[in-house]
């Protein structure tokens, strides 16, 4: 399992691996927001938590179509399926690698981008916490979507259509934590619900992803 994780990380950091693309996308989306809604700092401060959450979510989505498709094309998935590693573990490791290369950088970059959007002072730590708790769910749910569409020629658009509705609860609770945190309200309820969704997704979805992948490998 560690070997697979290390390989995926190495592939992401090597040339053409696409590491940093999600981060750049996140930056650009955040920069475009003031252009579209205007530069009033109080308006930006109000929408900052939601915009940052949405930007992080879209950036996560961007790299999903490469998550399993590359291994599918070069036959690695067939070989991994015959390896001693259960497919459930394989997809979990793939999701973890996706989170480390995409989710974690987004979490770390979000406070910096918060400055650009006048995020109120107390919001920074809550934004960081909510993204840290929420992005693993985004990676795991995304892996399920990637497993569903892995055999398709132009699966990218369909992948977005399938994954985005599944992202709704995570987005609602995550952005709610950040929003409440920014205005100094109590955050423990949405935080617990967000943690619950992440824990449930991480524990259960790999089984669905592996089942779907087995069907696609047939």
């Amino acid at each position, binding site marked *: 399992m560690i070997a697979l994780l290390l390989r995926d990380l190495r592939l992401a950091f090597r040339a053409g691996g696409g590491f940093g693309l999600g981060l750049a996308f996140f930056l650009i989306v955040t920069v475009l927001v003031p252009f579209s809604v205007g530069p009033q700092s109080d308006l930006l401060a109000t929408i900052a938590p939601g915009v940052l959450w949405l930007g992080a979510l879209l950036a996560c989505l961007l790299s999903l179509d490469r998550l399993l498709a590359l291994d599918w094309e070069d036959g690695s998935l067939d070989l991994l399926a015959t390896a001693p590693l259960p497919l459930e573990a394989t997809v979990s490791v793939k999701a973890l690698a996706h989170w480390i290369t995409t989710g974690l950088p987004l979490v770390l970059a979000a406070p910096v981008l918060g400055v650009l959007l006048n995020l109120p002072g107390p919001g920074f730590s809550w934004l960081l916490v909510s993204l840290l708790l929420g992005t693993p769910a985004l990676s795991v749910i995304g892996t*399920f979507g990637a497993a*569903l*569409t892995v*055999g*398709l020629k132009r*699966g990218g658009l*369909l992948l977005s*259509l*399938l994954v*985005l*509705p*599944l992202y*709704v*609860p995570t987005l*609602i*609770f995550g952005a*709610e934590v950040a929003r409440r945190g920014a205005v100094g309200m109590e955050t423990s*309820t*949405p935080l617990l*619900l967000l943690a619950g*969704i992440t824990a449930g997704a991480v524990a259960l*979805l790999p089984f*669905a992803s592996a*089942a*779907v992948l087995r*069907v*696609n490998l*047939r």
Partner: protein
Amino acid sequence: MPMSRTDKANTFWSYANPKKFLATTERMLPVLWVLAFACLAIGLVWGFFFTPDDYRQGSTVKIIYLHVPSALMAINTWLMMLVTSLIWLIRRHHVSALAARAAAPVGIAFTLIALVTGAIWGQPMWGTWWAWDPRLTSFLILFLFYLGYVALWEAIDDPDTAADLTSVLCLVGSVFALLSRYAVNFWNQGLHQGASLSLDKETNVADVFYQPLLVAIAGFVLLFVALVFYRTGTEIRARRIKALLARERAQEGMGR
């Protein structure tokens, strides 16, 4: 010979045979169409023209005869797809998977009717076509789930693979749709009135409205059953044609 439980089970599952399913539903369909349209006509005409105006909402309330049944069926269609998907995953009856496929566009139509009538009703009531009310929002999310489900069916060539993948999507989607429902409730408390139908008499709509509503709901249910039977029959025939073509190709391959 006394009929054992397994015999009964066998007679139920025997409808999973496409031929038997087709033969049975073709006999039932004319009756179903007539009943469905009769109930719809009676329920809607009774509801629109022979009920008093509501003291608060005026005549706009009469849109419930479209809105409530379609909303009810939008959810029940998804539930039916969930059950048939489970049957496919567990028992591998092709008819079950095809019935789920056949029901999805019907569900989309019901969801759209519910959303549009909701907007038309919302305009005079709340002064806006759209509000991010939890119930409306949930239906919008349900609509997105339907779209994804249908798109996945359309995208995959191999019918068994498509059936498997969409069934798992339906299962996972159901869980997330339920989560979304609670998340949306939490996110915005909403303007929408409580459920129009419930076992609690106090909160229910008055009897004058209630009886035609039940007839309209029966009409929608019958229409749904008829549409799903009809569309499943079409799917079965399409599947049969596909299988015959594949068989022909395989035999050509042997000839060479």
